[in-house]
């Protein structure tokens, strides 16, 4: 119950900000932070709960973005439909990629997901209708009332998606699904012997992860009024989606949320005050520090700080 009150407050706060804050850049930056919360939450379902490290975030994110752009160009479909279609195609890609790669374990799975990103980028570079290598310019439609600007509307949409994806991750984590995924992470042989249908469960996780990442990518073409392959399939999405749960903690839904909030906010501040190169460096340094010094993330540090009495 407390979770749902918190979720409601978060959405209301986003709406209130859209109504009260006049400064447009706040929404540009806030949108990115929220988007990384969705990406990190999605990544953690497969990478954190099941332990399958995935570098394919840009493939799913980019496919979502391109799906939205292409159906907007072809049919001028509204944003809600773009997001639904993006979730569908990216979810199917997750399922397909899962069938092909989930028999691989550890480092081999991770390598296969990098290949997936390269494949997707190559496809869209060569698809003329989607703009090819030069990309597509897109004209935003007018924002839907009561929103006065399109960016504010996208900010609230992304806030809703963040809450929805967190609720989904939290449900999975606490149900028998989550226990099955954790069993897979700990020992796949023992999980099977305990009756866990490991392949089915991994496919499910891969599909949900892909769909959420695709949905997170869907508003991107409208956010930028532009889409092109190089930046859409950028490895920085993979690193952000992976680094946030690592920094926040992979064991629970709160870890990726905290990690993404801290990391993306910091990145936004550094990009504006110092430089874009420095912000990439900061992600790298933070990731190394946390992997070495605090493998259970910020949440793990908190638990230890609260003392062994909570055990």
């Amino acid at each position, binding site marked *: 119950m407390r979770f749902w009150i918190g979720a409601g407050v978060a959405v209301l706060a986003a709406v209130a900000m859209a109504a009260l804050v006049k400064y447009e850049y706040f929404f540009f930056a806030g949108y990115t932070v929220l988007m990384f919360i969705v990406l990190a939450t999605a990544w953690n379902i497969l990478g954190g709960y099941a332990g399958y490290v995935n570098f394919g975030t840009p493939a799913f994110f980019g496919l979502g973005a391109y799906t939205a752009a292409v159906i907007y160009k072809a049919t001028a479909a509204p944003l809600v439909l773009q997001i639904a279609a993006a979730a569908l195609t990216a979810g199917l890609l997750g399922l397909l990629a899962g069938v092909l790669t989930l028999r691989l374990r550890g480092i081999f799975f991770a390598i296969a997901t990098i290949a997936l990103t390269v494949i997707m980028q190559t496809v869209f570079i060569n698809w003329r209708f989607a703009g090819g290598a030069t990309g597509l310019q897109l004209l935003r439609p007018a924002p839907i009332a009561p929103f006065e600007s399109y960016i504010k509307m996208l900010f609230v949409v992304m806030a809703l998606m963040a809450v929805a994806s967190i609720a989904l991750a939290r449900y999975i984590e606490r*149900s*028998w699904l989550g*226990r*099955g995924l*954790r*069993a897979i*992470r*700990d*020992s796949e*042989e*023992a*999980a*099977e*012997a*305990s*009756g*866990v*249908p*490991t*392949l089915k469960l991994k496919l499910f996780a891969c599909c949900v992860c892909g769909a959420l990442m695709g949905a997170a990518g869907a508003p991107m073409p409208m956010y930028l009024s532009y889409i092109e392959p190089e930046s859409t399939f950028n490895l920085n999405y993979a690193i952000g989606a992976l680094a946030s749960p690592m920094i926040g903690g992979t*064991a629970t839904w709160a870890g990726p949320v905290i990690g993404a909030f801290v990391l993306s906010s910091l990145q936004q501040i550094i990009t504006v005050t110092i430089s874009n190169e420095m912000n990439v460096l900061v992600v790298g340094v933070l990731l190394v520090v946390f992997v070495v010094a605090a493998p259970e993330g910020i949440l793990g540090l908190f638990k230890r700080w609260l003392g062994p009495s909570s055990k």
Partner: protein
Amino acid sequence: MARPLLEIKGISKHFGGFTALSEVSLEIAAGERFGLIGPNGSGKTTLINCVGGALRNDGGSIVFAGEDVSRLAPYQRARRGIARSFQIPRPFRTMSVLENLQVPLEYLAHRRTLHTADTASEAMQILASMGLADKARTPSNRLSQVELRKLELARAMAAQPRLLISDEAMAGLSGSEVDEVLKILFDLNARGITIIMIEHIMQAVMRFSQRVVCLDAGRIICEAAPAEIVKNQDVQRAYLGA
């Protein structure tokens, strides 16, 4: 005579050019206490990996309760009632002892009512019967060797099996600890569970088994009652190099 619970019909397993099992056939009756012995590398674990489904047999078939399970995934065989413990314990190390048991309880015993069953109290009962009740909340990566062995058996029990395969559950344990694990296995058998025991500790196999088979280089070299098998020349040669 009633149909055997497990029928292994001429199964073979090759790893590249190496033949781990060649045309092994076995029948195990419901309720039986069955011992499987053999020197290291003789194919014992390969055989039970084939029965459990972790490996697919190359030739022959495995029939469990009248159904050919040779092509089923391990979890599907677990649903039909084949449970196993692992030679090297494989606990779900990020979970507590209690949660370790909740996995098979949720996925096997209560898989039709996954959301409603109270698996915690059931898991506690199993832990109590194994003498692990006071460890229920302990993270499984902090257990001792003998506790890990018991957890392996407890988790297999939570699967509510008809056939339990115990893969060297006693290796490396002290005399009194061996007695503890033996008692657990006897209790399970008394409740109607068929048990295949793989073991190097001969004294334990002799006390426990009603029938023993000795494997050597992927073939069955002897099948007999415990008292006779130790007198068998082939078994002595395989084990002692005599």
